[in-house]
């Protein structure tokens, strides 16, 4: 028995509510089937349902909301084109995040040498404060958020996928194209780094 119910966006998807969660997943799949038959309304419904998460996922990866806007649109156009090939081996949300990840990495590779990221530059904290000092000025919640943001991308993405996107170990492996053991290892180091950053900011949580 699960002693503590899930929290956050998954709060209403506890084990007791499992049938409701399955129904929602089936609806996603049913919509993809409709998309495969050329139903434009169905792809718009999927867009409304998943766009914000895909957009945020890409924005977090690329550091650019402009790129996130372009890529998120491309992801749903890809859904439109590829729906007949969707075999339902993964959840629709996992499939979309996988497409988004691939497109984001491709665009980052293309832009690597010549793209000047004004948005990312603007997001860098004031140089007078190191991340640790800046963190000390905030409460723990804000400090945690800043520490999550400051994680290396390979660690932050597993944190985001687990906590925000509600993905399982296996699903994260599918999205990132890495083995499940690597997902666990990255999660371990991500949380370890978070703990160390928080400790440096004066919030010792006792681990690591």
């Amino acid at each position: 028995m699960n002693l503590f119910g899930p929290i956050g966006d998954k709060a209403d998807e506890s084990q007791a509510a499992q049938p409701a969660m399955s129904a929602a997943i089936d609806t996603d799949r049913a919509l993809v089937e409709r998309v495969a038959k050329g139903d434009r309304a169905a792809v718009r419904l999927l867009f409304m349902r998943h766009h914000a998460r895909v957009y945020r996922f890409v924005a977090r990866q690329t550091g650019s909301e402009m790129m996130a806007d372009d890529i998120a649109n491309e992801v749903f156009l890809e859904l439109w084109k590829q729906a007949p090939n969707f075999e339902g081996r993964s959840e629709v949300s996992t499939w979309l995040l996988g497409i988004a990840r691939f497109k984001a990495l491709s665009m980052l590779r293309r832009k690597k040498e010549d793209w000047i990221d004004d948005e990312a530059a603007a997001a860098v904290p004031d140089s007078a404060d190191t991340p640790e000092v800046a963190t000390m000025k905030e409460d723990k919640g804000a400090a945690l958020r800043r520490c999550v943001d400051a994680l290396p991308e390979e660690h932050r993405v597993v944190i985001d996928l687990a906590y925000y996107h509600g993905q399982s170990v296996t699903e994260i492996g599918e999205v990132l194209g890495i083995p499940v053991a690597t997902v666990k290892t990255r999660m371990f180091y991500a949380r370890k780094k978070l703990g160390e950053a928080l400790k440096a900011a004066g919030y010792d949580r006792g681990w690591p």
Partner: protein
Amino acid sequence: MSAAEKMSRRDEMEALLPFYLNGTLEGAELEAVEEWLSNDPAAMAALGEAEAEFSGATAANEAIRPPADALSRFTRALDAEARPARTPAASSWLRQAFDRFMAIPAPVAWAAAAALLALVIVQSQLQPGGKGKDFEVAGQEDDLAKMPFALVKFKADAKMADIVAFLDGNGLKIAGGPTASGVFRIAIPAGTTADYKKLLGLIAAQSFADTVLEGRKPVDGG
């Protein structure tokens, strides 16, 4: 249990806590985390810290606001797209090639499509009958010698799915090509010049057709 083993076990449990919290943990790992939470006094504090991370990660993500007009802009882009390509009848090799085609940028994809269609022709010459399920290929020498044909160049941004569907729907066959300049020879199953011209007009009317030139016509004197 030694201190080192205990630490290792805690590390393992700490790595699983996010998945416990998001409700995706199951089986032996779920049991292990629940057993740890029940028996180790440090576990409850660890769970509280993970919950705080959960909130922090959620807040960091939700601070990003997608543009309000995203749906309307997507709808416009969607309206410009053709219907999704249906490929259930595709042979596995063609389907794999098609999947790869769809995953790459259009200019590169078109070059790949040319290579793919060339491959169709080669395969049709290797396989008796030379008939694909998505569209028919005139792969036999007799066909090539007898059938009327047209020379067709497709637009650079043409979608292979559209072309395949069109060829299949009208009984048209790829008879040869592409040349270095991207021209295909399309076999035209027409018995009269009138039918031939009608089919050429149909090809020329397609959005993916760039240039359509008359080749060999039926010998009906028309």
